[in-house]
């Protein structure tokens, strides 16, 4: 797979998860106890054998670089290829309609010129999935495609608006790309992951230089007849995170045994920064039910239907239900937390009560409590 390089967009703006990601980025937001959101896309890339990844960084890049370090955990600390940092364009206003801003690639066009690979895999950091692209790349090569768009068939009707729908012929060639709300079942939608010939990408960037703030999907749609565009299906677990509600629900999904099996226990692992925390210690008073608990915690209190990150301290009598507690929080004795998303390094003082609800989880920022 050394014949494919990747570009990973780590600079999604979006809803910024109600401030949880204000000085971080959605890419480096904690997820599922020990992971960061970007781990899913990045692990999928390296598990497919890709060893050259360009990461488009957001304006606040410290937390993302802190997490990635030299890329060792993703086998990207290499002489040939490895992890390249591609600073994204700085925009005051970010439109969440744009997935792959062409200006971000154009600013880093050197990356495309100096890596002699046939294909470029492009993806974003706000999806939870585990996908080995090997078969998709083989399909792409066999079809001699210019572009292969990865799609999914919706399981429920209209479970999300604003999707980009693909219309394929029997040979899986894409004839039309349409951004519209569709009430129809089984219309494949593009999941913002694509394989494109490096040469074709370079040509598109060059050709559309003057329109460089547009989304890469636009020139593809406009030239759908001139380019050989194919679709390739992904049928596994995949969820996209746009809002705090998404973030909350997708975390809670992990309490489902089958989803954990699909994401974490297949032949490909989700890689993340290894912190060398000690194991988690349960005290005599601990009562934990239906929860996911990371390493390095000390638990003396009650936890139910929750996701607890690394090195969280939970004192006796504390009650945590339906909540997400990020790393290094301290939950003092006698507190009650319900439907709370708690930022890292936060301390909740003894006896405090914080309650959100399923539709509006209460987001507690680092400095807020």
């Amino acid at each position, binding site marked *: 797979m050394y014949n494919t390089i990747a570009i990973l967009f780590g600079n999604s703006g979006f809803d910024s998860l109600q401030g949880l990601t204000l000085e971080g980025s959605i890419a480096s937001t904690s997820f*599922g*106890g*020990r992971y960061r959101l970007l781990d899913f896309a990045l692990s999928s890339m390296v598990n497919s054998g890709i060893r050259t990844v360009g990461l488009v960084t957001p304006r606040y890049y410290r937390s993302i670089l802190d997490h990635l370090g030299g890329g*060792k955990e993703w086998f990207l600390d290499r002489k040939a290829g490895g992890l390249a940092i591609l600073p994204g364009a700085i925009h005051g206003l970010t439109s969440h309609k744009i997935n792959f801003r062409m200006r971000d690639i154009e600013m880093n066009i050197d990356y495309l010129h100096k890596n002699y690979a046939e294909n470029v895999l492009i993806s974003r950091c706000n999806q939870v999935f585990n996908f080995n692209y090997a078969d998709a790349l083989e399909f792409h090569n066999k079809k001699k495609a210019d572009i292969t768009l990865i799609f999914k068939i919706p399981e429920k009707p209209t479970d999300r608006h604003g999707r980009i729908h693909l219309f394929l012929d029997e040979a899986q060639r894409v004839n039309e790309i349409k951004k519209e709300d569709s009430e129809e079942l089984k219309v494949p939608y593009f999941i913002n992951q694509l394989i494109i010939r490096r040469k074709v990408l370079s040509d598109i960037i060059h050709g559309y230089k003057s329109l460089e703030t547009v989304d890469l999907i636009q020139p593809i749609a406009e030239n759908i007849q001139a380019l050989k565009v194919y679709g390739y299906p992904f049928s596994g677990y995949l969820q996209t995170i746009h809002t705090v509600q998404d973030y909350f629900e997708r975390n809670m999904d*992990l*309490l489902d*045994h089958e989803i*954990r099996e699909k*994401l*974490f226990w297949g032949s490909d*692992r*989700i*890689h*993340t920064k*290894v912190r*060398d925390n*000690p*194991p*988690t*210690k*349960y*005290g*005599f008073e*601990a*009562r*934990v*039910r*239906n*929860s*996911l*608990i*990371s*390493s*390095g915690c*000390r638990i003396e209190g009650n*936890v139910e239907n929750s*996701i*607890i990150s690394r090195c969280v301290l939970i004192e006796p009598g504390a009650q945590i239900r339906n909540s997400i507690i990020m790393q290094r929080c301290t939950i003092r004795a006698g507190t009650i937390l319900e439907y709370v998303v708690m930022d890292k390094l936060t301390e909740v003082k003894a006896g405090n009560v914080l309650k959100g609800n399923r539709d509006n989880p209460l987001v507690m920022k680092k400095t807020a409590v």
Partner: protein
Amino acid sequence: MHKQKCIAMLLAGGQGSRLGPLTRNIAKPAVSFSGKYRIIDFSLSNCANSDINTVGVLTQYKPFLLNSYIAQGSAWDLDAPGGGVHILPPYVGENEGSWYKGTADAVSQNIEFVDSYNPAYVLIISGDHIYKMNYNKMLEFHKQKRAEITVSTLTVPWEEASRFGVMTCDDNAKIIRFAEKPAVPESNLASMGVYIFNWPMLKQALLEDSKDPQSDHDFGKNILPRQVKQGKRVFAYNFQGYWKDVGTIESYYQANMECLNMESSFDIFDARHNIYSNEDLLPPHYVGPTARIENSIVCNGCNVLGEVTNSILAQGVFVGEGVCIRDSILLPYAKVYDQTSVLKSIVGERAEIKERCLVGAEPGTGSEQEGITVIEDHHLIPKGSVIEAGQNIYRIR
């Protein structure tokens, strides 16, 4: 501190047969400890935390398994250029090779390895000790005393002293007598099996020793007593802190259980002297709706549906519904299926205990029972089995 030019030689021992079923397939240093660690993690982390980045691991075993755990040493930050962890099994040299005949012989056979780093000092450590130590402080003591050899020591209860190498010192901490496992100890100052030697001196001593047909080629039995007798500058460094030899099933079990006691002087949670390990990449552990976990250590990747008390679950362990685990250590990826009880037992890596078994004792007799039950790794205990307390269960091959 300057480039200290100190390299470590880690004696990873023979087959460690006193650990019974646990070391039938795995070299002793690679045996799981306290859930997420392996025994060798402690020595390697001590080296890393002491700026020592070159470690030779002397092992009798076929080196492949230990090799794959240690890999490039990067898990312990020991992969710097010019440094690294090197597995040194007995090799075939110009003459046909042979097993290491003793701890000193193991180092003797690798004089060329040590020489290739041209160190001023060599630190000799052991692969079956659980402790946190900054070897640098000992090295500073060694330099300050202008010692030729420094032995790290512990004060032990008098009744245990005869299990150790014990020494008698003058007022300046210079060792004037050294006796290995004396029947009647004249001191309770015991050797931890951690030594610093000036390398040219050690090389000389090893060459002498290798020519002595009477010698067992052992550091404690031969090298040290001889050097003390010859009047070398041998000093005793007084180590303060937790130290445990885990060479037997009993001491291994006890040291694990001590990790459950937070007040214990050995605290694996202290971030200032972190213990590193080459852990598998696993998701956080899941605790099910019917689970109950008390006073226990649980690692990543576990799936706990039953009751766990006073126990240690290493990574990837499965505990089914209605299971009762008490006073036990479950090694990585061990599986205990529904309605089974495991009491005061050590369950080996990837061993499986099927439904409705009793392992260790009848439920209710508690941990006062005598004897620790040990199940070999990869062993499968069929449905409904009853294993009495204190048994060592080996796989049939």
